């Protein structure tokens, strides 16, 4: 099956979705932090779930679980896997 290359930000993914990071729109300290957690171009993420009211999201990068606020998650552009 062909997959269309659609780029979305992380918060547009649903629970359990897997995706590859295409672009990080963060800067400075935040970018460094994300990169040191392994969230960088080409990294594979799994969206584990949302906190109440979708304010915070939990993702899995490699073998690590990471909690991000919605605002930060929106800066991560991903391409959902087929």
């Amino acid at each position, binding site marked *: 099956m062909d997959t269309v290359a659609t780029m979305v930000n992380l918060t547009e993914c649903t629970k359990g979705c897997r995706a590859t990071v295409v672009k990080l729109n963060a800067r400075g300290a935040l970018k*460094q932090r994300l990169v040191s957690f392994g969230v960088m*171009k080409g990294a594979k993420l799994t969206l584990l*779930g949302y906190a109440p009211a979708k304010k915070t999201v939990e993702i899995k990068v*490699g073998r690590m679980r*990471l909690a991000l*606020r919605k605002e930060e998650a929106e800066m991560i552009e991903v391409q959902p896997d087929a």
Partner: protein
Amino acid sequence: MPDNAPVCPVTEKHIRIALVGQPNVGKSMLINSISDARLHVGNFSGVTVEKSEVFFDYKEYHFTVVDLPGTYAFTDYSIEERVTHDFLCNEDYDLIVNVVDSTNLEKNLQLTAELMTMSKKMVLALNMTDEAQKEGIEIDAAYLSQLLGFPAVKVSAAAKTGIEALIETIIEVHEAPRQEAKLIFSEAVEEEVDAIARYLDTHHFKAAISNRNIAINLLQNEKKTYRTLHDLPLWTELQPMLIEADRHIRTHHDTDDIKEVFAEEYAAFVRGVVAETVRVNNPKAQKKSLTDRIDDVLIHPVLGIPIFLLLMWGLFQLTFEVGNIPMEWIDGFFGWLGDVVGNTISNDEIRSLVVDGIISGVGAVVLFTPNIIILFIGIALLESTGYMSRVAFLLDGIFHKFGLHGQSFIPLVTGFGCSIPAYMSARILKNDRDRLLTLFIIGFMSCGARLPVYVLFTGAFFSQSVAGNVLFAIYITGALLGLIAAKVLKLTAFKGVDEPFVMEMPKYRLPSLKLIWHTVLTKTLMYLKKAGTFIAGASMLVWFLSTYPHSDAIEQNYTVQMEKTSEAAGREQLAVERDAAQLEQSFLGRIGKAIEPAFEPIGLNWKLAVALQAGLAAKEVVVSTLGVLYAVGEGASETDKSLVNAIREHIPFASAVSFIVVIMIYLPCLAASVVFTREAGGIKYFIYLFLFTTVTAYALAFIAYRLTLLVTGAPAVLPT
């Protein structure tokens, strides 16, 4: 060769080790299992926020291990990261032991790669080998050592395996000449590194380590290297080279940020190393892990918060129900002790000092040890299972609304134990404004030392069956008041942009009984030690101030009256009045009477006012002071000596409510205030804290007092 020269002239047979690694990889626990240290261990990022040194001997070597706060990357954004960064850059040490989590090598080695550019002797400790084995992760340590250029040793701090091999390796590395670590970059970066290194070589620049290392650091914009080279004649030629190299590398990586370039370079290097050395053969890999399954429940979007509240409620219920069982025995013991000791002392004044002063005061504090222990167990479980980070995740949404950062939850929870470590742990907050705001709010989380006051008063006014709920309500109200205070402060004093929330969620770990036991035991012993020393001293002081001066006029006056009274009941009544009159004209009574007018509007008499003031020294002193004041005031005439009964008899309910409100809010104890002032960065902040807490406490106590009077319809009478 300069390579062989020791970096610093350390006396032989001393080895000073810097323990470095990402947060929550088990650095502190590793030290605990190597030596007999008792460093704080917990299952979340940011347990250690300050460096601490541990000493131990092995064979003929004296070891000093410096435990440093965990750091994800070699940066200096937050205070704890700065501690590590500054230590590694500016202080003397012989080698770095880089602790990594074997179950997450790819992320951990990222920091390792950065450390490799420091050109220090290094040993890699592959910790959590036990977990890796369970998860089917196999690491070829020998090959890994070969690829990195320094030894890697498999250890487990929890199972205490590989510890000796690690120490032996450290000694070997220490004794051998330093080897260049084998960090390899992409072609573009290697090209530039080579060019610069060659340029330095041809100009006979003698680096302490190697010219390749200097080149890497120059390309990374490392400040110290820049400064050293900046004043040399070759800089004029080197600088344009660097600018060109920088441009070349950045175009290659398609970014304008050289930091990002190197992050990507390190990541690529690490990926290569991991691919070569790590095998995962886990048949269950596709299935949900235990952590995933627990998380499905505990951080459920709807049920998560109610479950958390339920757990907290259960904890306070236990604190009251179970904690109160041994209380009767302890109370009985101190009553008995007072009688026995009292009977052996013939001198009235010394007997009063020992029985009414020391035993009443210390007894009142020791009485609450069981409650405190249960609270400590609760906090230890929260810290060591991994639930802490989950709650921070759940509450971030709410916290954010009130202007707090989700990670503030960690210092705030620590505050339920004691404010001092809580103030310190606020260092994990990256943003100074968030940190200050959190510092101001920590006091609203009632510390363990305030628990005795609450237990005493709820026990006095509520039946066994609801007292636990009341206790829970007090804590929750305190926390909610803290949130509101945060909002107010955020809107007024700490305006500003919100800091991002990015937090690692550790996997759940079953804490060993030993770990919990050690944590709780250490804290409990501290509490008891304080009772035996500081509280005993304070009780003696309070006894002295409330016993002297002794008025002979009052004594005579009452003796005459008592002789005229025939029936026993009347004489006893007179004795009580006499003791009260004596107490009122004592030093403490006079001070208390002088400040009483200020406390009258909130329904407190001078005894309660004095107890509150004494609580500024330490919160435990509140109950010990009440213990002494009510023991001295009662004299020998009272039959039931328990403090709970005295409170119930002498203090109206509304006054008790007002008292509790003040306790919940007012200034933390002296030691905590000192730490607050240091962490906040100046006496100015202490003055703000003093004004803020005093005004809030007074205003809310006034409202609570009036409301309670209104609701209960009781008249406004002061306690006696």
